[in-house]
Structure formats: C-alpha cells, structure tokens
C-alpha cells in the first residue's frame, strides 16, 4: 500500500496532498459548427474526491470528458489537470498529462485486434519501460480486481457487454492513474454486475485514493457510489459500507443542461432540491 502510494507519487510528479485541485474547468465552452454543446462550464475536482456528472442524452457529458483528456480542444476557457494548463498543449505534450488519466469509454473502446491481456496492459507494454514480467503481474492483478482473471487470453469479441465494460475499467486503472474518468461504466448492465462495477469504483477511490469523474444516467448507481465507502478491515479484506455524512459530502453531483451547469452539490442536497427539472430527472 505504501509502495503503491509512492509509485503513484512518482508517476504524478507530486505527492498526493488532500484537497489539491486535480482537475479545473474554467469557463469552458465548445460548439460544433453552430450547435453549442457547452456554453460556460466551470467546476473543480479535488484530489481523492468524486464528481458525478448527470444530464440528459446529448447534454455534453462525454464531450466534457473528452475535453479533459485533450481529445477535443475547447473553443474558449481553460482546463487544468494536476496544476498544468492543458487546453493549449500540443498533442505530444498532452501525452505526459494523459499518463495520470485513465478513461473508461462509453462503449468500452477495447482494441478488438488485441487479447484482453494486451488490452489491459496496453499502456504498460507499449508506452513504458516496465519489464514484461512486472506488466504481466500487474495485468493479472487488475484482472483479478474486476473478477476476470481467467479471461486474459480471450479476444474482446468473445466477451459479454458487462465483461467488456469491466475489461475497460481494468485497462483504465492498469497504469495506476491518479484520476479516473468513467463514461457510463454501468449503463446496460444487470443490477448485480452494475453493483460489482460500482464497488470497484468505490474501492479505487477509497483504497487506491484515485480521484474520479463519473458520467452516468443510472441514478441508482450514482447514489450508491456517493453514499458508500470502502474500508480495509483488520484481516486485509476490503468491505463496502454505508458512508457517514462527512464522507458523503466528498462526492458531488453536477447536472448539465443546455450547455450549463444547473446544479452542483452533494447527494443530500440533490435529493432535497425543489427544482422542477431536477425532480423530473430524479423521479
């Protein structure tokens, strides 16, 4: 555990201090031709916290994550990742920033010409000097983490939708990024599998101290993640327990509508909101 933290600190170049802003969106806007997707979006994600982005289909949630990854450039506004301004960075320099970011794409986006093992270990195999044995060990470890250890040699086409989603999560976390972005990680999964995925997300946040941004339609999963915590017990096992009020406040919801953030606050505030649109969305 201490070793892992040290590893991550080296990767990030900065020691993990609590309450450090890891992602900042500052008045970001983006339009495709004359279609405005994001009008004026500002938010801050603190280290070790969770942001849950809600919004109707087409509200610009996936676009927000893609801007954060530098896959799209905003028309105006600034984006900061780990204290570095990224919206003006060239693609080559962006690669270094991305080393701290892990993304679970909406449809998984697994490389279908590679096996599960090669997918999960992709960054470590191709973009780092890590010895192959160590990579193999890390791949087994994360595949075990998502419960798919025996599927390492399969091709993605031979997996179910939920298994593919879990492989995508394993791939995103394999290189131990400080920040994980989940785009609809649980949509379309059965409740049991969705719960397993939710538990992974909670564990990553509370045990591995990963900061996360979660995009989802599934309110049930969103609330579950916001209101639960993972604790390591005396015997080393990790258990998911209901979070206390303090812990709950560390997960913030954010609602996108017509290119603007129309709500930002914790689970309790969202539940109590009187806003008509929010109430329809929640019901």
């Amino acid at each position: 555990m201490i070793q892992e933290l040290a590893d991550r600190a080296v990767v990030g170049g900065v020691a993990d201090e609590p309450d450090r802003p890891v992602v900042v969106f500052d008045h970001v806007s983006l339009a495709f031709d004359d279609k405005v997707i994001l009008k004026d979006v500002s938010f801050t994600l603190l280290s070790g916290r969770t942001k849950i982005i809600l919004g109707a289909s087409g509200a610009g949630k996936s676009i927000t994550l893609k801007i954060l990854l530098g896959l799209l450039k905003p028309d105006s506004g600034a984006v900061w990742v780990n204290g570095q301004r990224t919206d003006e960075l060239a693609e080559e320099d962006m690669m270094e920033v991305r080393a701290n970011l892990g993304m679970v794409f909406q449809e998984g986006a697994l490389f279908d010409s590679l096996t599960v093992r090669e997918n999960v270990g992709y960054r470590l195999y191709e973009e780092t000097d890590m010895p192959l044995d160590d990579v193999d060990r890390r791949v087994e470890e994360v595949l075990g983490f998502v419960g798919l250890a025996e599927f390492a040699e399969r091709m993605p086409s031979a997996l179910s939708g939920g298994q593919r989603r879990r492989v995508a999560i394993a791939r995103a976390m394999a290189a131990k990024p400080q920040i994980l972005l989940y785009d609809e990680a649980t949509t379309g999964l059965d409740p049991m599998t969705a719960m397993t995925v939710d538990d992974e997300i909670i564990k990553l946040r509370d045990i591995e101290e990963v900061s996360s941004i979660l995009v989802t339609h599934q309110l049930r999963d969103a609330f579950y993640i916001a209101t639960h915590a993972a604790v390591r017990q005396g015997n080393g096992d990790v258990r998911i327990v209901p979070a206390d009020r303090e812990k709950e406040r560390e997960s913030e919801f954010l609602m996108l509508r017509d290119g603007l953030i129309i709500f930002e606050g914790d689970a309790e505030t969202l539940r109590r909101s009187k806003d008509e649109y929010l109430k329809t969305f929640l019901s």
Partner: protein
Amino acid sequence: MIALIEDWLKRASLDVQEYVRLLGATARGMVTQPIYRHDIIEQFDAIGVASLTVVLLTGFFTGAVLALQSGLTLDQFGARPVVGRLVSASMIKELGPVLTGLMLSGRVGSGIAAELGSMVVTDQISALRALGTDPIRKLVVPRVLAGVLMAPVLTVVSDFVGIVGGWIVARYQLQVATGLYWSSIWQALYMQDIWMGLIKPFVLGFVIVTIACHVGLRTTGGTQGVGKSTTEAVVAGSVGVIAVDFFVTRVLISLMY
C-alpha cells in the same frame, strides 16, 4: 449552384490539407521515436504475404492472355517468335505495376480503410490517444512502410509469373520453342524498363496506403460511415493508381529515355 460548387471546393481543399498533414505526420513518425516494430512486422505480413495469392493469380492469367492476344496480332506480320518480348515488356513496364496496384487497392486499401474507420467510430482511436499512443505512429506508419516496400516485391512476383504464364501459352498453344521465347525476352530487356517497373510500384504503394489511411481516419457516421469509407478508399485508390501511373510514366520517360 455556385454555392454548391463553392461548398464542394472548400471541402475538397480541406480534405487535401488534411491529407498533406497526414503525410507530414507520417514522415515525422518514420524518423523519430517511438517506433512500433511489432506492428511494422505484422503489417508486412498482412499487406505483403497475404496479398501473394491474388497477385500470383492475376499476374499469371494476365501474362497468359497477353501471349494469346499478341500471338494473333503477331501472326499477321509473321513475327510470332517475338511474343516473349511483347509479353515481358508489357508486364514489366505497365501491367505488372498497375494490376498489382489495382489488386492492392482492392485488397489492402479496403482493409485499411475498414479497419481504421471502425476504430474511429468505436472510439478506439480516442482510446489509443488516451493511453498515450499517437495513432499515426502506431497505425499509419507501419502500413505505409509495408505498402511502399511490399508493392515492388509483389510487382516483381507478378511480372515473373506473368512471363511464365506467357511462356506456357507460347509453348503449348502458339508452338513457340521455349529457347526462342526466353531469348527474345533477354534480348529486349532494357535497363530503363526494369527501372521503370521498379520505381512505379513504390509510388503506387505509397498512394494506395496513404489514401486508405486518410479516408479511414476521417470516417464519421457509425457503421454506415465505415462502409462509405471503404468504398471511397477503393475508388480513390484505383483512380489514383491509374492516374499516378500515367504521371510517373511521363516523368520517367523524360528522365531516362
């Protein structure tokens, strides 16, 4: 109407700009690190070795039918024995490079456009970038290298089996003696012809693969878009092969003959 033409011109020039940018990035990717060796080897296999069958078959039958047809024409002048010379000159200078190019644009161009196109629409290209890989280095550079270096090899193979096909027809159908057939080839084999036959496929291979990569990478619109890109890559690649063949021939003639 004017507006439509203007719109079309604007899009075409943007497209060309994108293509030129891709060529620049590819050139940079070839000479700077990181280089993905494993992918390069894989593409040599996928583009070169796997195209062998189709090249062998088309080369062989083209040579054979050339011998048949020129046999008819040559008979009018009583010049049947020089059939070998006609077959080899046509194969080496024109038909070998062009037919191999057309086969490659059908087989390889379509494959590349479909593969890259579906990677675009399923976000795999975004995923590559998110994982710290430049898609041009990882996907385009290996394909271009393999296309540029394998096209000449395949062309030589095609030339050779074409001449062999011509020989079989000459020997068994036209009753031309084997020694006569081959000696008429040797006598008429000029160095310039060989150079022309070798330089062309380099250029054609480059054109086919870069067009296919470009078309594949700018795919939009889901699976339907992938289908469109695939068709476009084959059409643009084939037209490109024929057109570029003309210009390269023109340039080489003024340089060498």
